[in-house]
């Protein structure tokens, strides 16, 4: 009776939601069971996300479309909230699920026991992320941003301890301020246009009265700033390194995609609202994005070079990746073309997976200097008052042989991918961006040259920085080989496997991204689809409401 | 205000009087809150508003809405009861708090604390 195909689009939100809610009914000490449930949910998410991706790719959504629409509550746009699953959002969903599984496996090494309700919060984070990727409504975007932020607060503070709490305080304060800004922006846009539906807005932009346009732009700027905070733009990104460093490893691994939600939204909205068809608003904000993006790359590369520890460096790598993507976004808005955008998407996926892997490596790599022991010391203030089973030594597991070799290889893989060195996907992404930028007729050569210089220098800085750490850790360190569990290294290997797969299947991946980029360049099709999405007939008679 | 056009005088007059009386009482109470010199004096001031200030205004409301809706409107009673029952809690605690703090500072204004019961008296 239930047409699963119809409801597939909401599944990425519902699966983690139900899982998270259900786990609240169980005692938090049943951690193995919860881990299994959580993993099951993530696996289901992956299946669903891939199915959505396949549908987007093969035009298998209703009506032979490459985009699926889901009218929540069966209300048509622009009145109800509509979910839109197109190639881009499907890609982000897959990426999220792909990161979640390794992070969860990693957490089995002991992290999930460092605090309460880890698994539920993790699921809610997934829900928030997926919700933000799918929604077609501005205010709903706010709500799901809050879901994912709230979950990220919880996960960041997971395990407690001074470092986390200090970082958490800043993180929360700044994000609260940004959320307020977001609200001002959204409401301003509603006040000017009378709608919250992104497709509706996209239709209206070109025809806005000239007296209204500045207000509309102001709304966009306020919202944009909120997203830019989340994306880690310089100079609004100083919270990011401390926060990402403080998070527990599996959490930090998920944080790798958190900045990208900001990027995703900026990309989505700018392409919808300020694309070529936006009349007087076309290209709005591209200068800002380019300038801010480049400044962020520059800042990130300075940070990478200036970092002493791998954690801080990894966080600055996140900034470089964010900055690059924003620059690309700005350039695309300025007419950079579909290929450039496709290159950017490829880069996005590659850098997210690689940073995630790096964050997972962080802890095993620094184990000799403390690692889990240090983490326990950090949270030792919890001793004495709580259930003893909350804490304690890491779970016994299978220690891997040839630890240093495996760690070294994994680290090397991350390094190659992040520095954009051949042959891994980072290189392909960089080549894709650079060759597209060079090939674009609409971009000022100065911009293109700056982009090339910046990307190459950033790659170099990454190489220098990571090599420094790598040498320190693997070559210069003396003492015993740390004990690393298989559940800790397997996720990293899996993530690197993804990078490898992306490298080998670069053609198909890039093709997919090219069609995604092409779709983003045609917002009219998006909005037409949203408005034409049909209500479900259902099997019940029309409700009788009058008395 | 158009909706009051048809209000008969026998409703409007008492209602108006009640409203004016209630609000004026409340205002007077707060005036006391500002002008009275000691805290314990000021503690009395708001009760003007919570007793007949509230009662008068609620009565007026019952009267007017009772007439316009053509039936007995009593739900303002609930508010009245709530206010009456809950105000003492605040004021008692506040008075007690002031007493306690003043005693703690050794103020001569306030009476001594009741003597501690001898330990033997305790069950």
């Amino acid at each position: 009776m239930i047409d699963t195909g119809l409801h597939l689009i909401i599944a990425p939100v519902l699966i983690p939601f139900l899982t998270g809610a259900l786990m609240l009914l169980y005692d938090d000490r049943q951690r193995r069971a919860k881990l299994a449930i959580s993993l099951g949910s993530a696996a289901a998410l992956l299946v669903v996300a891939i199915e959505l991706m396949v549908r987007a790719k093969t035009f298998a959504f209703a009506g032979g479309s490459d985009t699926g629409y889901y009218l929540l509550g069966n209300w048509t746009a622009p009145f109800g909230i509509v979910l839109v699953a197109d190639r881009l959002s499907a890609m982000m969903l897959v990426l999220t699920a792909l990161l979640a599984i390794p992070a969860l496996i990693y957490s089995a090494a002991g992290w999930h026991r460092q605090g309460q309700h880890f698994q539920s919060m993790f699921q809610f984070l997934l829900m928030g992320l997926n919700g933000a990727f799918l929604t077609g409504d501005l205010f709903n975007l706010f709500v799901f941003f809050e879901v994912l932020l709230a979950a990220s607060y919880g996960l960041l503070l997971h395990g407690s301890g001074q470092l986390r709490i200090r970082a958490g305080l800043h993180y929360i304060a700044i994000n609260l301020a940004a959320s307020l800004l977001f609200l001002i922006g959204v409401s301003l846009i509603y006040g000017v246009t009378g709608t919250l539906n992104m497709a509706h807005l996209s239709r209206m932009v070109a025809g806005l009265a000239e007296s209204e346009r500045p207000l509309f732009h102001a709304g966009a700027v306020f919202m944009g700033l909120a997203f830019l905070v989340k994306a880690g733009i310089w100079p609004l990104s100083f919270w990011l390194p401390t926060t990402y460093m403080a998070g527990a490893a599996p959490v930090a691994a998920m944080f790798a995609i958190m900045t990208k939600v900001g990027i995703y939204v900026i990309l989505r909205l700018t392409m919808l609202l300020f694309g070529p068809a936006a009349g007087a608003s076309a290209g709005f904000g591209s200068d800002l994005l380019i300038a801010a993006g480049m400044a962020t790359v520059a800042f990130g590369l300075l940070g990478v070079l200036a970092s002493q520890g791998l954690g801080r460096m990894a966080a600055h790598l996140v900034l470089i990746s964010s900055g690059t993507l924003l620059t690309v976004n700005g350039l695309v808005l300025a007419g950079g073309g579909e290929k450039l955008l496709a290159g950017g998407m490829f880069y996005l996926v590659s850098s997210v997976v690689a940073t995630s892997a790096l964050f997972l490596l962080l802890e095993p790599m620094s184990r000799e200097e403390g690692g889990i022991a240090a983490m326990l010391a950090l949270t030792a203030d919890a001793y004495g008052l709580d259930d003893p089973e909350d804490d304690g030594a890491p779970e016994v597991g299978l220690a891997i042989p040839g630890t240093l070799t495996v760690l070294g290889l994994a680290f090397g893989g991350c390094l190659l991918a992040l520095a954009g060195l051949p042959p891994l996907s980072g290189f392909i992404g960089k080549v894709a961006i650079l060759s597209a930028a060079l090939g674009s007729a609409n971009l000022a050569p100065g911009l293109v040259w700056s982009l090339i210089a910046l990307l190459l220098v950033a790659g170099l800085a990454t190489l220098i920085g990571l090599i420094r750490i790598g040498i320190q850790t693997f070559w210069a360190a003396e003492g015993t080989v740390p004990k690393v569990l298989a559940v800790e290294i397997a996720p990293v290997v899996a993530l690197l496997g993804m990078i490898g797969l992306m490298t080998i299947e670069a053609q198909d991946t890039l093709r997919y991204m090219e069609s995604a980029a092409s779709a983003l360049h045609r917002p009219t099709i998006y909005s037409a689809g949203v408005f034409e999405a049909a209500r479900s007939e259902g099997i019940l008679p029309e409700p009788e409401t009058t008395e | 205000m158009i909706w009051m056009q048809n209000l008969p005088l026998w409703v409007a007059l008492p209602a108006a009087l009640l409203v004016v009386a209630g609000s004026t009482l409340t205002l007077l109470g707060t005036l006391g809150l500002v002008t009275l010199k000691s805290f314990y004096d000021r503690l009395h001031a708001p009760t003007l508003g919570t007793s007949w200030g509230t009662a008068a205004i609620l009565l007026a409301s019952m009267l007017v809405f009772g007439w316009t809706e053509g039936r007995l409107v009593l739900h303002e009673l609930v508010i009245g009861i709530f206010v009456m029952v809950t105000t003492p809690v605040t004021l008692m605690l506040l008075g007690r708090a002031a007493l306690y703090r003043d005693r703690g500072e050794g103020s001569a204004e306030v009476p001594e604390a009741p003597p501690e019961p001898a330990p033997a008296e305790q069950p």
Partner: protein
Amino acid sequence: MIDQNLLLVLVLLPFLAAIATATLPVHAHNAAAWVSGLFLAGCLLVLAALHQTVADGGVLVRTIRWVPALRMNLSFRLDGFTWLFVTLVTAIGVLIVIYARYYLSKSDPVPRFYSFLMAFTGAMIGMLLSGNILVQVVFWELTSIISFLLIGYWYQSPAARDGARMALIVTATGGLCLLAAMLLLGQIVGSYDLDRVLASGDIIRAHPLYPVVLGLFLLGAFTKSAQFPFHFWLPGAMAAPTPVSAYLHSATMVKAGVFLLVRYFPALGGTEAWFFAVTGTGMATLIVGATIALFRHDLKGLLAYSTISHLGLITALAGIGSQGAILAAIFHIANHAVFKASLFMAAGIIDHETGTRDMRRLSGLYRFMPLTGTLAIVASAAMAGVPLLNGFLSKEMFFAEAADWHNGTWLDNSLPYLATFASVFAVAYSLRFIMTVFFGPPPEDLPKEPHEPSPWMRRPVELLVMVCLVVGILPGVTLGPALNDAARAVLGADMPYQNIAIWHGFNTPLIMSLVAMALGTALYLGFAGRISTGPEGPPVLHRLRAQRVYEWLLLRLSWSWPRRLHRAFSTDQLQPQLRLLVALTLVLGGAVLWGAMAPSDNPRTNALNPAFALMWLVGAGCAIGAAWQAKYHRFAALISLGGAGVVTCLTFAWFSAPDLAVTQLLVEIVTTALLLLGLRWLPRRREEIAEDKLLPARLRRIRDLVVAGIGGACIAALAYVMMTRPLVPNVGDWFLRNSYYEGGGTNVVNVILVDFRAYDTFGEITVLAIVGLTVFALLRRFRPASESVDQPEQRRAEAQDGLRDYMLVPAVIMRWMFPVMIVLAAYLFVRGHDLPGGGFSAGVTMAIAFLLQYIAANVRWVEARITVLPIRWMGFGLLIAGLTGIGSWLFDYPFLTAHARYVDLPLIGRIPAATAMIFDLGVFALVVGATVLMLIAIAHQSLRSARLREQDAEPEQKEAA
């Protein structure tokens, strides 16, 4: 087709060998060597099989689709030039494998060594064979990366680590430049296909970007082949095991750069810029390398600088670019590879058998190892360019090219002198090598007693020296055809066959050679003593070492300057970050709105009600009061905040938002309670903090006040402009029209929340749930600051102040309010759909009811009587809301589709029934659970700290007892 596939085999075999060796056990010395050697031998077989095709001038190409979208495909291409080069690489590779088998000690983890070595070979072959210029960069960078691992093989030594890092940074930087160059080339040519690029020389040279491309390209090539001033990494890389040095610095790594110069000559070369840049750099490198080599005391150091110098020679030839020059360049590539590999191996044997490489300690070794000595002497002679050896031939060709007329520039004209000058030093250092190491008095106190190495360690050297001799004597028969094939492959088929003879008559090159030998011998003989006692490097110049400059620069560029800059452009304090956010918002918002924000001509206004204005006098006063007092009088600020909140709530009610008013009020109450619960844990704040009175603090405050003032003014202006604007047609109208007919409720706000936009509410309750969990989790691990563990001052004093049963009477009322509040909650819940109220308000009301009981009594008292399991409430709440939404699937509707209808009940009549109410019930349960959880979790801290106090007190009591 078989041939083409063999090409793939050629590239793959070394990589397969790498994988195979990597899986061997740590001490499998023989197996690793055998596997590597056999795989490479396989490569040689393949090369032999392909030779005929290439010799016929054919070009083999095999392409595998990789990323056609980027025009980046795995294309491999074999012609005469690459055949020769690959053969060289592979053949010397085999010898290195054999050599390494005996060179490495038992304790070295050899599988890793062979694995890296094989991978490196594969990368090198891949680079040579790449038919796609981007893929060429891929393999190019791979050689850099793998060489890093090889150089750092003995990573326990700091020198190895530094050397490896330096090599990687320099060559990878060059690689990035090369990448940029290739991308540009691809743009210019329209293809990344090597054949197309090589055929498009005219287009490239005419393109305005040609200088840029050339610059980037040369940076790539020069860094890799250690051209001055990027030469310094090469000596540093000598920390590698000798087999690695022998391989990297003879046939492979450094030759990649010159390979590129020769290969791309048709595309990029032939211009004056090329000549000056390439030949100029080459000559400079030739001279610098040769000069420094003479003064190095380390055997491998001498060889390293000699390598640099020879690479300069080849580069100079590539810069000249005439047919002869290219042929000579290729010839010297091969010759240098052969004699330098043998020399490195010989140096390795000496090191291995004596324990030192310092020429000041080595002496008279000939009597201990005559065979090795002979081999080394022959190889050195080849290096010095002594006739009848292969080095002589290519050097003669170089001299010939140097002496020849090309373009008449000053550089061209000075080439012969420069070449001779450099050669003088080459002769001198070769002599020094031979004389100091093998002749003279017997060595004293060497770490080891010198003797001949195991024969198999010597075999590779013997073979190579044999090649030196054979090629040197019979060049035309041995290497001639292959060389010609190679040169033709580079320059085109129309190039005439050039005979390579050992005797060209008594001509200028020969004179140059003789002069060089004479002067070189004189130089060595004249200064031998002073050189050996002098510093490590040429006089005066040794102070000015490029490596130091590099290290200084690297430290600055990659560490101290970035650190300083990073610190200047970032902060880890919260306040500046928030200030930046506010300021950026104001600046950007201002930039967009400046001059564009006029109030509407016909403003939409409501008549002013003085009461409302008075109320906002209250609100504003409270807001400012809260801001004023939040530092020193938190309690007062909290109360002021409550005042501002209640006026806000009034405003909502005033302007037709009763739901908002109710919700705001309820939240206000809970927030006050929460903040109060938190206040207890904050430190006392003294009014007098001297620092606050200081000027900087004051200035900070003034600045923030200005920012805040501007911010407030801007948002006020924006709000005014928006409020007075005519209302645009909006979706709100649709909600008003359809709320009752479609949503089955008259309270449109509630219908929006539980039906039209229920999905927002669905997310919102999740936020609440998450926050509840977070609060709970965080507080579970909370440990208060030591001063907060104590009872609050008030309670410590309680005994003497007779604060007995102060709650007795209030608590009675508060308890009796519990059921009343439950009824109120039910009331708010039931009517929500039609009138103000709803699940959220009801939930908060319920939570307040619980809160009040906790206030009236204490935690233990309450929890002994009522058990609230907040997390269960939350779980059920979420599940109810979610499952209600999913329930619509059963009827083929999307998630959260509500269904409303009126139901006839016996006795009661028609009552409204909407599934949205069930959803709202979920909201209710969740809100109760989450709010209570937060309140109680904080409240429990007092209990916990009481327990902490008890714990702390216990040891004291024990001590006392």
